[in-house]
């Protein structure tokens, strides 16, 4: 590690007696005896790491065909049935030879150096929103399927703890440790030039031409400081000057007189009359809870089906009835049987999605807290169609 500037600097400071000691603490004679010994069961539950040499792998196995089934059920909602990635969700297969392209496709096959990373991440952190629900054998199966999707194994391949380290990913040698101290620091360590350093310059690129910056309602970049000259007028009449749209959501109550009008339904069509009396605080809380859902479900004006269907007007609607969304069989059957999304069915579904409607394709563990379910249902009810 001595090539790192970090340590070089530290060594230099120590040598010159200038150690800054930002983390200096009183010298302690020996251990403090704090904490308690971790039990083997606890370590087994928390130390799930799998290292590049296979340390940490749990015994088990899985084949490509099983992996394809599990992947379709738990992963394809975002990553696509062939690991090709839906919308902007990560692409997991393909991309070979693309790393020098202007738009490289970094996948397990084209970029990832170690298979252990795939196993470790799927088992510990996937599916998104329902981590640690993939069993050990399922993890082997998904990993085998991903190898197959990348053309690295045949369709009869079985991955297990015994053959795991035999698999080498194509880009295993594509990485090298940080070499900035050797390749960049010598170039950029120099006396600063102060005058006539380059020939006169001209503007060559303007961000404004891309027009991708979030904007305030006046068309300026979002968050622009307001003119100080104009501010006192606003200050004199807080009740009639609405705060910027985004602060209506974020601020606790910037203008008390306007509070009842702040029932937040961002960019949504007008709420149906029946929920006009709903508790604005509950709806606002529900909007926060909904962030857990927003990865897959869009709402508001112009919302389109994504990984999940649009949820405008879902409360009171037949199950599985949003136009253009490809539902699982179980939701279509429930809708055909007359099931409607109301407070009771939504609550049951959100409590335990897979338990309430087995084999549906929503990759979501559910909302455990009753008050959060009530809030998100109130929020959904506040959305128009």
């Amino acid at each position: 590690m001595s090539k790192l500037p970090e340590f070089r600097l530290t060594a230099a400071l120590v040598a010159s007696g200038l150690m800054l000691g930002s983390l200096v603490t009183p010298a302690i004679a020996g251990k403090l005896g704090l904490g308690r010994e971790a039990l083997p069961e606890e370590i087994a539950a928390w130390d799930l790491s799998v290292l590049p040499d296979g340390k940490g792998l749990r015994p088990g196995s899985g084949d490509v065909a099983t992996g394809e089934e599990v992947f379709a059920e738990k992963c394809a909602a975002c990553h696509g049935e062939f690991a090709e990635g839906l919308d902007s969700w990560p692409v997991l297969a393909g991309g070979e030879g693309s790393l020098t392209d202007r738009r490289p496709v970094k996948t397990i096959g084209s970029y990832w150096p170690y298979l252990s990373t795939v196993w470790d991440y799927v088992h510990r952190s996937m599916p998104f929103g329902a981590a640690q629900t993939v069993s050990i054998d399922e993890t082997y199966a998904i990993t085998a399927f991903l190898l197959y999707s990348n053309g690295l194994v045949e369709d009869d391949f079985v991955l297990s703890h015994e053959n795991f380290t035999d698999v080498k990913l194509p880009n295993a040698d594509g990485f090298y440790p940080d070499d900035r101290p050797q390749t960049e620091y010598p170039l950029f360590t120099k006396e600063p030039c102060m005058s006539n350093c380059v020939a006169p310059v001209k503007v060559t690129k303007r961000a404004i031409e891309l027009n991708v910056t979030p904007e305030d309602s006046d068309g300026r970049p979002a968050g622009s400081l307001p003119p100080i000259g104009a501010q006192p007028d606003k200050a004199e009449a807080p009740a009639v000057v609405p705060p910027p749209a985004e602060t209506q959501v974020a601020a606790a109550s910037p203008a008390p007189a306007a509070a009842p009008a702040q029932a937040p339904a961002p960019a949504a069509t007008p709420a149906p009359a029946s929920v006009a009396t709903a508790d604005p605080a509950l709806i606002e809380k529900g909007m926060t809870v909904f962030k857990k859902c927003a990865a897959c479900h869009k709402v508001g004006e112009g919302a389109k089906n994504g990984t999940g269907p649009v949820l405008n007007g879902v409360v009171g609607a037949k199950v599985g009835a949003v136009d253009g969304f490809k539902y699982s069989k179980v939701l279509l059957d429930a809708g055909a049987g007359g099931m409607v999304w109301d407070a009771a069915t939504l609550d049951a579904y959100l409590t335990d999605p897979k338990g309430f409607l087995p084999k549906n394709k929503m990759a979501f563990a559910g909302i455990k807290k009753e008050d959060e379910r009530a809030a998100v249902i109130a929020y959904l009810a506040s959305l128009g169609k």
Partner: protein
Amino acid sequence: MTDEPVSQSRRGFLRSTALAGAGLVAGAASARAAAGPDPKITEVQDWASSFGDAVDAAPYGMPIRFESHVVRRNVEWLTESPVSSINFTPIHALEGTITPQGCAFERHHSGAIELSKQDFRLMINGLVEKPLVFTFEDLLRFPRSVTTAFCECAANGGMEWGGAQLEGCQYTQGMIHNMEYTGVPLRLLLEEAGVKPEGKWVYAEGADASSNGRSMPLEKAMDDVMVAFFANGEALRKEHGYPARLVVPGWEGNMWVKWLRRIAVYDQAVESREETSKYTDLMPDGRARKWTWVMDAKSVITSPSPQVPVRHGKGPLVITGLAWSGNGRITRVDVSLDGGVNWQPARISGDAKPKALTRFHLDIDWNGEEMLLQSRAMDDTGYLQPTKDELRKIRGLNNVYHNNGIQTWWVKADGEVENVEVA
């Protein structure tokens, strides 16, 4: 480098305005005076006569409503999901060096979780003499230290590799915050467990669904890394890892694991998803740098900038900005008004602490003509902040991370400011 605010150009300005006579400087305040006495002065205002708020009007105070625009903001098209996303510190609207927690940028990989002190457990395992579990109360009984450090996402400025893209330093350099932390040196916790001789790497992971595990060499873990539970004098905020997070001074923000639950000692790097698939830097030959932990020296002018146009016309103008280096202390910052042809030294205001944000100022007499503003930082290793093109020459356009190139703001004659590149 001096802390004296009076500059050559300001004295020049005072002399020239005295000669030219008053009233040449445009601006709201002076316009009012020209039209007659200011009623804000001549009339008794409500606030000068009646009561203001009683104490306890806000048991925990929030910024006054006139500052409601000073908030974190995100760029929705950047990510597919708001629970695995990032927002940006409003650095254009802040001064000094400390970032208030309430507007310090957030980066979550699976949402900000609510973890109480009662539910908190920190495990230390792996190549140690005795694997341990600490409660939060245990942590409070270790000797503490205090340190100020910047936390910068490795991807700060990553959208600008291909050219100027976003309008405002909140978006181009705002994946950064700077806080004063109090906590326990990680070294003390590791020593309590006893690191075995074969232990070379320390792996930290969080309690959230992403876990966001990262490996670091044992030397760094034993040097200045902290398990922090206070920031800016109060408990960490939920979105910054309450009740305890890792502080890894000078190194990329992804390693500052939040909602810390486990520290493990291994004989090798784990090579987790966050240090292979992500946070590795693709080079033009198709290979990639890994373990690029250090954030190199960098600076940006925070005002004027696209979100802070010059509205007062020509005359005295305060140029203010931030500089920082993960390799040490900022020793100088230079500012150019002409896109890097000529430079002048800026003033370092306050302390320049190692691996912490440093404030610089330059007071000029603006002649009202357009400017191409740039700032350029140097740290105490002698490293001079490069231009974006100097970086691209080495790293190409697909590097994604660690863009510490010089930023250019085009200040036009009407005071509006654009993010541009020059050549």
